[in-house]
């Protein structure tokens, strides 16, 4: 009897807790797109259907457990078949399922229509960062997590957007249909922003598409959701949705920056400039594997005191620009600019007591890229 009470109390508490938790933000976000709201309402509909079925089934179950206790002198019946009941409890669930399948099918049909896009963005997953390319604008950049390691190790207080901050968020205009083309350079990643209800795998060698029409300006955060190796947890997605005019301004700025950088390729760069730029690039792109102090870890070779790298500058350039197949070393010629590649190589050849004094000019890299 006490056990029964405990059962019923436990069940009751959890049934009360569930809606309470859902109401307090521990639920799927409603999101800021038409699709995300459709999905949310599908989710809540199925949830309540399950709750109702659960309540009915468990009510019968607990009533039986309570009413037919042997300690209360219950005598067992002997029935073990009842065709009508069996037909009913097969047919009714079937009908409920059809009822669920109809709206789900309709929503899915809407999700599978990427036609008429205003803007195409190519999203490329790399271990462990995202690369975005605005297809018709000639703007592209890499987006890596900007949460410092000191916060992860706990030496520093954790910020509000711990693990969900990036150096370069994906900027998108609101009320425009944005089509994403997703692919990967190495392993399978998955690009997810809950508020946008977009989750799609990025598969190496193949391209998937998905789309979004954001209705409200804001900053939306998500993460990589397919296990992609060591830093899978540190591969956030941040989307900054802006009004059209703001977006245009941002885009113009980005284009100007890219142009300035392209123009600066041909000039002779100073060691100090390259080192400064290189340190920044190294920190955002290379340090996750080769470590901030160049000491490497596990399968990632140390760069500090790496003789092969220091002896052979051409090999060093080849590895950074073209990557190494069969290893996590990506081809950065595609995702970093010539200036960035030159800067990071110069940095690697001179930081941490490497002191070769080599300066790699952006123009040399540009030549390799052309």
């Amino acid at each position, binding site marked *: 009897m006490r056990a029964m009470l405990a059962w019923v109390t436990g069940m009751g508490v959890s049934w009360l807790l569930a809606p309470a938790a859902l109401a307090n933000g521990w639920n799927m976000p409603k999101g800021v797109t038409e699709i995300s709201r459709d999905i949310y309402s599908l989710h809540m509909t199925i949830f309540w259907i399950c709750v109702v079925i659960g309540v009915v089934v468990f009510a019968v179950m607990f009533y039986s457990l309570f009413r037919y206790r042997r300690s209360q002198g219950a005598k067992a019946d002997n029935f073990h*078949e009842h065709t009508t009941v069996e037909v009913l409890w097969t047919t009714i669930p079937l009908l409920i399922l059809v009822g669920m399948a109809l709206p789900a099918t309709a929503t899915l049909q809407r999700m599978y229509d990427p036609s008429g896009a205003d803007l195409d963005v190519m999203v490329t997953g790399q271990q462990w960062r995202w690369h975005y390319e605005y297809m018709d604008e000639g703007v592209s950049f890499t987006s890596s997590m900007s949460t410092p390691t000191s916060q992860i190790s706990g030496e520093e207080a954790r910020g509000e957007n711990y693990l969900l901050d990036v150096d370069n968020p994906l900027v998108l205009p609101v009320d425009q249909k944005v089509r994403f083309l997703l692919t990967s350079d190495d392993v399978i990643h998955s690009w997810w922003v809950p508020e946008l209800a977009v989750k799609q795998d990025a598969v190496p060698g193949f391209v998937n598409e998905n789309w979004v029409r954001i209705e409200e300006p804001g900053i939306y955060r998500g993460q990589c959701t397919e296990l992609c190796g060591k830093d899978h947890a540190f591969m956030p997605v941040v989307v900054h949705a802006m009004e059209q005019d703001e977006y245009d301004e941002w885009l113009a700025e980005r284009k100007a920056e890219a142009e300035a950088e392209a123009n600066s390729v041909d000039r002779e760069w100073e060691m100090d400039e390259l080192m400064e730029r290189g340190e920044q690039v190294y920190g955002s792109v290379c340090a996750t594997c080769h470590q901030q102090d160049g000491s490497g870890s596990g399968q990632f070779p140390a760069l500090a005191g790496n003789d092969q790298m220091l002896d052979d500058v051409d090999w060093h350039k080849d590895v950074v620009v073209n990557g190494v197949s069969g290893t996590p070393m990506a081809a950065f010629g595609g995702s970093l600019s010539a200036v960035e590649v030159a800067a990071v190589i110069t940095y690697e050849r001179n930081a941490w007591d490497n002191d070769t004094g080599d300066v790699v000019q952006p123009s040399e890299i540009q030549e390799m890229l052309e």
Partner: protein
Amino acid sequence: MAPKLPPQHPLEHSTATTAGQAHEHDDHHHYGGPGGIKRWLLTTNHKEIGSLYLIFSLSMFFIGGIFALVVRAELFQPGLQLVQPEFFNQMTTMHGLIMVFGAVMPAFVGLANWMIPLQVGAPDMALPRLNNFSFWLLPVAFGLLLSTLFMPGGAPNFGWTFYAPLSTDYGPPSTTFFIFSLHIAGISSILGAINIIATILNMRAPGMRMMDMPLFVWTWLITAFLLIAVMPVLAGVITMMLMDINFGTSFFDAGGGGDPVLFQHLFWFFGHPEVYIMILPAFGIVSAIVPTFARKPLFGYASMVYATASIAILSFLVWVHHMFVVGLPLAAELFFMYTTMLIAVPTGVKVFNWVTTLFRGSITFETPMLFSLAFIVMFTIGGFSGLMLAIVPADFQYHDTYFVVAHFHYVLVPGAIFAIIAGVYYWLPKWTGHYPDERLGRWHFWLSVIGVNLTFFPMHFSGLAGMPRRIPDYALQFADFNMVSSLGGFLFGASQLLFVAVLIKCVRGGEKAPAKAWEGAEDLEWSVPSPAPLHTFETPPDMTSQAPQRH
């Protein structure tokens, strides 16, 4: 733990027996005399092999559990405190592999070895020597798998689903050993399945028709067919992986003209039936326990058999629901959504049948019954979240989050594992001749139920709020529920020590059990003495005249 089940020389039988004692001398001739370790190495007796399987599975359950606790300890609070991400990934991977292939499957095979010959009235399994071999493959396989933890580059770190190319091009050097150990474990399962099929189809007592078999036997028969159908597919997939890694083929490498998505199709073509391999025998156990303690025949025996068969057939038609976001045409998503939703029907039928069995019964709440009732409730909750996951648009949000982790742990922990525990409590009197300690059993039960729910219920919410799977560190908004989950995990883990205490106590002594240890139990195993002598049913029982009360 010294393997003590079953006793070599049962001293007392609560019911007079001749069969068991008369054959004790034969045993020694049978084994050529040796006692001690050699006897256990060479045994061909289904009861001893069953015990070996169960003890092996229990030790793997603890090893896999420790890995899970490492994971939960790291996730206790945000930040990286105890382990580095590389090691965390090895822990999640090994936890999954060990629990699936080392704990749950061998436990069911162990129960099958012990109980199927007793339930069908056979003297032993059909192929006793093969039985010994298939058991001893397991320690080899898992010794090899565990040894990868000490290899350079560490153990497999790509999840128990080992998706290519993370596991092929980017896997640690130990991947080849992982493939080898999985091959051995797979061969062991296959041999076990052949043996079970051969036993059920050929060794039934005269007069026992298929539709007279207890449901545990039925569900295992269907499970064995699933194993025969899908384990070779797993073997094929890992062979292809092996060739991709070592022999330059490119089945799964886009760069060589292969396709990483093909890996997922092949894996889940094995993997989804595999999920049912881990739950169908559990249905059988619960279908034995509920009628026993409700003292009423199982409601809808035939529809239970049909439902099991339907679930098995449907399991081959739904694999794509594990990969809804991988990028598939609309028609494929719809097809697999509909087939997946259909599974809810036979599964629902099973739950309704159990509940109706309780209705107008005469119910008592011994430990096996408690675990079975918890199974029904929590497996149903896992079924509900499964139904939610089947809805493709919603799955785009749930996929690869903690919501999925919550779902499959509800199906596998209070599902498969609770059923195994219930089965152990239920059959312990038959194995040892003693009832398990009811008081300790109740403590074990309540702490397990609380632990399981504290661990996995909050995961639904962290998943809905956006926490991805398989991450060693998480954003601050997930902190509260992760802390609860971790506390629950440690409670659940610790309470399993009580289980070990119950087992040891029960082997050593306790209240003597008669042949029919539970008042409402009707199956054939309760007609032999408790503890069951080493040799039973040497003269097959005649079932022609006995229409089991069940139908």
